[in-house]
């Protein structure tokens, strides 16, 4: 499964990508949302794992733009973020509109749990 990893920190992104490779996925790491859109345009992805606090642009803004392209409206998204659930409670209802399947809080989520969620989404797309 081709996975777009949109994460601003190089070390963390490298570790997520290494984990994904171990489980047989093909990760594509991007830091810039605009570059991510160009990259997906060149080579489609099956899943997106992303943070929502990006540099210069919110990840949610990126997702609204991403979902505006009909081809990409059903690609599942897993959020892996530093923002705790209690701070985004008001937004959770809107997450389903942009097809966010899981929301993981970085400090309490081991990478393994993130990869398990990605694996769970894999069969539907392959």
């Amino acid at each position: 499964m081709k996975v777009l990893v949109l994460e601003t920190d190089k070390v963390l992104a490298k570790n997520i990508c290494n984990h994904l490779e171990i489980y047989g996925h093909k990760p594509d790491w991007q830091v810039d949302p605009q570059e991510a859109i160009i990259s997906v345009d060149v080579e489609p992805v099956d899943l997106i794992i992303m943070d929502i606090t990006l540099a210069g642009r919110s990840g949610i803004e990126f997702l609204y733009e991403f979902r505006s392209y009909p081809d990409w409206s059903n690609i599942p998204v897993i959020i892996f973020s530093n923002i705790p659930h209690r701070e985004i409670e008001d937004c959770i209802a809107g997450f389903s509109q942009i097809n966010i399947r899981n929301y993981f809080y970085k400090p309490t989520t081991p990478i393994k749990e993130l990869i398990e969620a990605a694996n769970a989404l894999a069969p539907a797309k392959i």
Partner: protein
Amino acid sequence: MRKQFVSREAANVARQKALLIALSDDLTLPLLQIRSTLELLDTQIFSESLVKEQLRSMSMSADTGLHLAEAYRLVLQSDKLMDLPLEPVAIGAILDDVAHQLSPYAKEYSTDIHIDVTGRLNPVLAHQPSLTAALQCLSASLIRAQAAQTQSNDYHILLGAHRSANNLVAAGVFSNVQGLSDRTLRAARTLAGNARQPLPALPAGAASGVLIADMLCSALWQPLRAAAHKNMPGLAVGVPASKQLQII
């Protein structure tokens, strides 16, 4: 009189709270880096050289967190900083020291650190550990911020100093990080503690270094300001040159 004192105390508590929130956000990153690397080492058997590389990476993450905590401790003492012994310090030596300490960390983020001291600068009058900590925090933040804005294998950071107006020496960190200006800094000072990203151009894990450096510089000399050195934009602080040594 008492009202003024209470309001000053309240402002101080709010400032410390804001800083603590920013710090806790930014300390999360090195801890996450260490934890995810440990998880990776636990998942697969790696060659000895790869294990060593991962250990080095974890050690750097730990160092970054510790530097940030140390700088935070200095900010907590900032009301007493004026009582600390000021000494004439060669700004070039401080920049060399910071570059030396940060070079492995910069390498991890594919960044080359350059030093440029323009002209023969007089020593500045400073509390050396505070000036070093401020420049170190600022540099580490900008290294991370630069790598978070665009993907490249060739980033550059310039640690520079030049003579400025009013017998000041401007020392700072210059890079291609977008979105840092006096205006964004002023907004960040107001937003610190209330907004998730007080500096919207910087990602999670990079803002508190700038805020800590700003608070340290404000307590000792003057706040950070946007500046340019050798056509590179960045953030700098004006440090007074040592007048005693000028006479000599």
